[in-house]
Structures are given as structure tokens and as C-alpha cells.
């Protein structure tokens, strides 16, 4: 086996609970040192997929291989797949250092070595001096870092994360995203990150897997998914996409930042729409419009442009886009 072989391979993996199929046969490979985000609405099967990778759920059909070895029947404690829980699941009856040492001691590392390695990781995560604290005496961000140290101290080849930032304040989320991407690059290990948040997935991941209703809807680099969503489901889920009728009868998607807003009818393809509202986003202002058929449209404009247009609610404008910004969507939608 070489380093270029994928670390993880899902082959037709299914998981059903009675009549309910949570995961409907997925094929996916994850490379070594890759940061993969699995994203989708709640109930799409993303957490079940992650839990199957950790061995906490057994696939109903198909194979999961890690490092070339079939893992279907390997129990969690014999795998090297530490998981960071949404609730963090720190042990409240152990102090910070004992939490970090737990995985080492379970793997038979001596007390002195476990102590040394735990202290190194606590220092690395900026938790020096906190080793004797109880976990409930720490802030949310500190607990997060304890959870990361506890999972990474055993030097795994892969870290699984299940919506670890969803309980944090917005400003902490941005900071932790920085911590996570830096860690992943420094360690060079695989991160599999499950989230429902597009901004988290797109900000950190090398590759995003979009799931819907137990199936993989699209896999690709964040930019490719954003620019060229394959189906209507992906276009809608990713947001800031306009779904419009295409020339050939199908549907196309146009990203909001490729839309031009003008108060006079431009030449070429354009839609007349009424202004609804505006929303300040990090990179510009998203304006919402509604066309004659009631379809909602979005366009990203700069502050100067918004001032020039001086839009009143209900004002009629024209929305147009360059031809190369239009991406045809596959006719079959995932939620059919």
C-alpha cells in the first residue's frame, strides 16, 4: 500500500433502522491528510456516516475500509478513530489532565509517559496551568480545546468531528475554525468534519461532501460546489444561488455574486423583479428580489452600488448575469 491510496473507503454502505434507511448506499473515498466536511440538513445521514466510521454503528450493507483493512466488524475501542462530540463528552469526574490522559492509559501507555504527553498537548492548546481544573470550571472554548487534546494526544491518523462548534458563540466559532485548520495542516492527518453549517464547511474543508436523504448529492472543492452545484437540492442548500429556468427547458443556477442589478433593462437575458430587502453579509450586501412568478432572487452588490440604486421596497429592477455564470442543473433532484 502506498501513501497515495485513500485512507478511508466507503463501498455501497447502507444503514437502516427497521424500515427507515438513514444511509442509502454511499461510495466515498477520503485521502490521507485531507480535510473533508460532510454537510447536509438534519436527518441527511451525515452523523450516521461518521458514527459508522468510528464503529459506533455497524453498516447494514457494504464495506468500510480504513488503510486497506475492512473495518465492518472491528469494535470502536480497537479502532484509531477518535471523535470530537458535539456535546464534547468530557468526563466530569476527571480533571483536565486526566481527561487528556484517558485514551493513552486505555492504550497501555505508562503513567509517566501519559503525563508527559498530556502536558505537551495541554501546552500546545494553550491550557497550561489548567491541568488540575475540573472541566465544568472551564469556558466553552477551553473545553473545546480539552476535547481536541484528548482526541489528538494518541496521535491518530484521522480525527472525526461531529458538529463540534455548534454550541459556541459566533466569534468563538471563527477562532476555533482557525485553530482546527492550523492543527490539521500541522499534524497532516485526515479530518472528517460533520456539520450543517455551510460557512464552517466551506471555510475549512479541502473537499465538501453534500448529503441529502441518506445519499451523497455532490462531492467537490468548496469553490466548485458553490460555482457549479450539480442538482437543485445542492443549489438550494448551498444558498446564495438563484435557480432559474434555462434556455433548453431545464434549470440553471446562478450565484448571487454573479448577478448584476440595473434600473434600466439591459440587453440580453434579464429578469424583471421587485426589490424586497437587503442583508449585510461579510463580503457585501445580499439583496432579495421577487419576480412576477413569485420566485425569490438574490444578488450580491457592493455598498456603493446599493447607494447608487437607492432601492425602495417594491422598486422594479432588472437582474442579469453573464452566460458563463449559468450552470445547468441535473434534471433529477435528490428530493424527488
Amino acid at each position, binding site marked *: 500500500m502506498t501513501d497515495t491510496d485513500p485512507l478511508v473507503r466507503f463501498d455501497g454502505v447502507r444503514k437502516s433502522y427497521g424500515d427507515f434507511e438513514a444511509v442509502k448506499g454511499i461510495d466515498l473515498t477520503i485521502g490521507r491528510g485531507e480535510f473533508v466536511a460532510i454537510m447536509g440538513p438534519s436527518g441527511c445521514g451525515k452523523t450516521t456516516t461518521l458514527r459508522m466510521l*468510528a464503529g*459506533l454503528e455497524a453498516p447494514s450493507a457494504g464495506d468500510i475500509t480504513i488503510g486497506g483493512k475492512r473495518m465492518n466488524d472491528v*469494535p*470502536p*475501542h480497537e479502532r484509531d*478513530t*477518535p*471523535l470530537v*462530540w458535539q*456535546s464534547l*463528552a468530557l*468526563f*466530569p*469526574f476527571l480533571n483536565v489532565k486526566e481527561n487528556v490522559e*484517558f*485514551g493513552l492509559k*486505555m*492504550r497501555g501507555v505508562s503513567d509517566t509517559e501519559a503525563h508527559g504527553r498530556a502536558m505537551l498537548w495541554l501546552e500546545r492548546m494553550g491550557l497550561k496551568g489548567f491541568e488540575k481544573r475540573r472541566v465544568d470550571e472551564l469556558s466553552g472554548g477551553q473545553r473545546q480545546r480539552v476535547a481536541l487534546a*484528548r*482526541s489528538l494526544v*494518541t496521535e491518530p491518523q484521522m480525527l472525526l468531528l461531529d458538529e463540534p462548534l455548534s454550541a459556541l458563540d459566533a466569534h468563538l466559532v471563527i477562532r476555533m475554525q482557525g485553530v482546527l485548520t492550523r492543527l490539521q495542516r500541522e499534524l497532516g492527518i485526515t479530518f472528517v468534519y460533520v456539520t450543517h453549517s455551510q460557512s464552517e464547511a466551506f471555510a475549512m474543508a479541502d473537499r465538501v461532501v453534500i448529503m441529502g436523504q441518506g445519499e451523497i448529492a455532490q462531492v467537490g472543492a468548496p469553490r466548485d460546489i458553490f460555482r457549479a452545484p450539480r442538482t437543485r437540492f445542492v443549489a438550494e442548500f448551498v444558498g446564495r444561488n438563484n435557480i432559474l429556468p434555462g434556455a433548453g427547458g431545464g434549470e440553471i443556477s446562478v450565484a448571487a455574486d454573479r448577478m448584476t442589478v440595473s434600473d434600466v433593462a439591459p440587453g440580453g437575458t434579464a429578469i424583471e423583479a421587485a426589490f424586497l430587502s437587503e442583508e449585510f453579509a461579510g463580503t457585501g450586501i445580499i439583496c432579495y428580489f421577487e419576480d412576477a412568478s413569485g420566485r425569490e432572487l438574490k444578488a450580491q452588490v457592493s455598498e456603493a452600488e446599493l447607494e447608487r440604486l437607492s432601492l425602495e421596497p417594491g422598486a422594479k429592477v432588472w437582474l442579469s448575469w453573464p452566460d458563463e455564470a449559468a450552470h445547468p442543473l441535473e434534471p433529477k433532484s435528490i428530493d424527488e
Partner: protein
Amino acid sequence: MKDRTTAHALIWRLPLLIWQGLFFVGPLLLMVAMSFWLVKNYRMTPDFIFDNWERMLTRGYFWDAYRVTLWRATLAAVLASLIAFPASFALAFKLSETARRWALFFLVVPFFTSYLVRVYAWQVLLAESGPINAVLGWVGLGPFTMLNSGVGAMVGYLTLVLPLVVILQTFSLAAIDRNLIEAAWNLGASPRRTLLRVILPSAKVGLIVGAVFAFILAFGDFVSPFYLGGSKPPTLSILIIDTTKSGQQWPRAAVVAVMMIGTLFAVAFAAVGAAYGRRK
């Protein structure tokens, strides 16, 4: 404003304070006082003499009874906790929510019948010619003397405490965050080590409270040692009965009772310390 809030709080607490005063603190003080009273011509007179204390605490039979009671209560607490744990574990982790609710309901049912009635039932079952010895006889064992022995008394204690211990253990086990168990498993702990390193520490309070309840109930129980244990060797509760019957020696019985309450307080405080105490 603040005075009103305090007054308000006091009024709401009043029923509990009155209850505690009338039925706990009052009788306790009376009993402590009574242990210093004098008995003359089968009549008690309030006094302040140390004769009762001296008489009881220097006698071997008191300390024999104390040791028997302490040992039996400890054994009952340990046995009840050990026997209950597998059942509680199954109830907490293997059953569905609905099944668990039904199981807990059936654990409450024994409390519907008097403890005395259940002990009488054991008298029949454990007798030399009873059904248990009959069954053992068919396979060529026995007959065993179970009645009027420590074994009989222990069966009675467990009848009294086992359902309660199972209920307390089940609640504390079912309340454990499942993520903690999965996290231990995920971090390389085998199921056995997960039990020892995560489940037991997480359920510690409930397990200790269950054992303490078993200890307290068995320590003060008089029905089982009397009807199933044959009063020999006497426990402290039986000593109290014997003392009151012989020459109206209520003050000496009060000495025994005060010693029992003191022991229970010490055990309860030690247990609370162990359950909630901070580790170093």
C-alpha cells in the same frame, strides 16, 4: 422588602420545621435525656445519672450485639448492591424507555404488601420442611437450616432493601450521558474498562445512596432478625425490645437507641462525603 421576602420564605418552610421539630428533633432530645433517667421500683424518674450508659457500654453483650448488627447491615448493603447491579444495569441500558418504566413499576409493587407479611412468607419457604429444602432434597442436597439463623435474617434484609436498591441504581445508571460511554469506547476503553472507569464513577452517587439506604434499613430492622434470624445472636433492635421488657429499663434502651442513631449519622455523613467529596 427584604424582611418580607425572608418572612415569606419562613412561612413556607414552617410546616417542614414544625414536622421536623415535633417528630424528629423533639423525640430525639427526649430519648437522649431519657438515657440519663433513673428507674426505681419499675418507675422512671427524670434525673441526670450516668448509670445507664456505664451499665450498657461496659457489658460484653451490648458490644456483641453492636458488632453483629454492624456486620449484618454492612453485609446486607454489600450483597444488595452486588445483586442489584446486574439487574439495574440491564434495566438502565438494555431495555427501552417503556419497558424500563414497567419494570420500575413492578419493583414498587412489593411495597404494596406489608414487610411483615413478606417475612412470614419466607418463614414458610425457608422452613426445614419447606419447599426450598424439598426441591434441594430431590437433587440430593440438604436439608439446610435456614430459618433462625444469620442466613434467614439476611434473606429478610434483602427482601426489605433489594427493590429499593435496584430502583436507586437504575435511576443513576439511566441518567448517565450516553455520549460519555461512547466517548470512553471511542478512546480505546474496552467494555469492561468502560464499566470500571466511566460507568461506575458516573453513577457513584446513586450507587452509594443505594448502599446507604440498604445499610440504614438493615441496621434498624427488627422484623427479620426476630422472625427469620431467631433473635440469636441479638441485634441492637432486639436488645432494645429485651431491655424494655425486662424491668421497664427504658433508659437503658434509650442508650442503645442513641448509640444506633449516632452510628447511622456517622455512616450517612461518611457516605455523603464519599459520594460528593472532591478528589485531591
